């Protein structure tokens, strides 16, 4: 189940996304919570200290590769298996929950 949460700034989407992630993890699902906001705040909501989140290694510039699919559409894909990506860059937030923060300073050039 891949779910994205959208909303105007200040609408409470991060509180809802993070709390939802924690609830699903508490119910026994393996959850990856991804902070895709360039102003990342998800760490606090899932229970990770901001200092721990900002100490994560920056994402490498060659993280994403352009691939052309069968229909000729260009897609950006991870240059490593998703599991490896989660292991290297994810932060254990609570039981069953891993946090990935996309908007780290060295994650440049893909915007």
């Amino acid at each position, binding site marked *: *189940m891949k779910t994205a949460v959208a909303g105007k700034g200040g*609408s409470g989407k991060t509180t809802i996304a993070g709390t939802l992630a924690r609830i699903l993890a508490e119910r026994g699902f393996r959850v990856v919570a991804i902070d895709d906001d360039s102003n990342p705040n998800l760490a606090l909501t899932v229970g990770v200290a901001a200092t721990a989140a900002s100490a994560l290694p920056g994402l490498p510039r060659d993280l994403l590769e352009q691939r052309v699919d069968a229909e000729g559409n260009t897609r950006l894909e991870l240059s490593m298996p998703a599991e490896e990506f989660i292991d290297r860059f994810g932060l254990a937030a609570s039981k069953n929950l891993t946090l990935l923060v996309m908007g780290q300073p060295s994650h440049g050039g893909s915007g």
Partner: protein
Amino acid sequence: MTIVDLEAGLEHLSRGTARHVQTLLIVGEPYFKSLETAHRSFTLAQDLGIARVRMVANKVRTPRDEATVREFATRHGLPLAAVVPYDEAVVEADERGVALIEYRPDAPSVEAIRRLADTLLVDTTDHAPAGT
């Protein structure tokens, strides 16, 4: 399971970053500008062909607030998956630098999000108990 907290606003939706998700939750507050944004997000999501789009009403204080959001959702054919009440516990947890669910796990807002989880799990056709 993956939960993605998207960039505020519409940019990631219009660029198709959210294209490969099965479910999009659009969070809106019970006032015009927020619901207007929610409607734009809904339209974009439909263009992207996202399978399941649901509205989540947040910071709802009064029955009139709730009615406003329900009327909006009905008018646009956007299913309302949850109504989350305005909750001081959210502000208090934030002030203390702790997660809301740890600060007050039985807070009304948390209970509403639990019900949201129930709704999403019942709805999905491919959920597996221990899968991602």
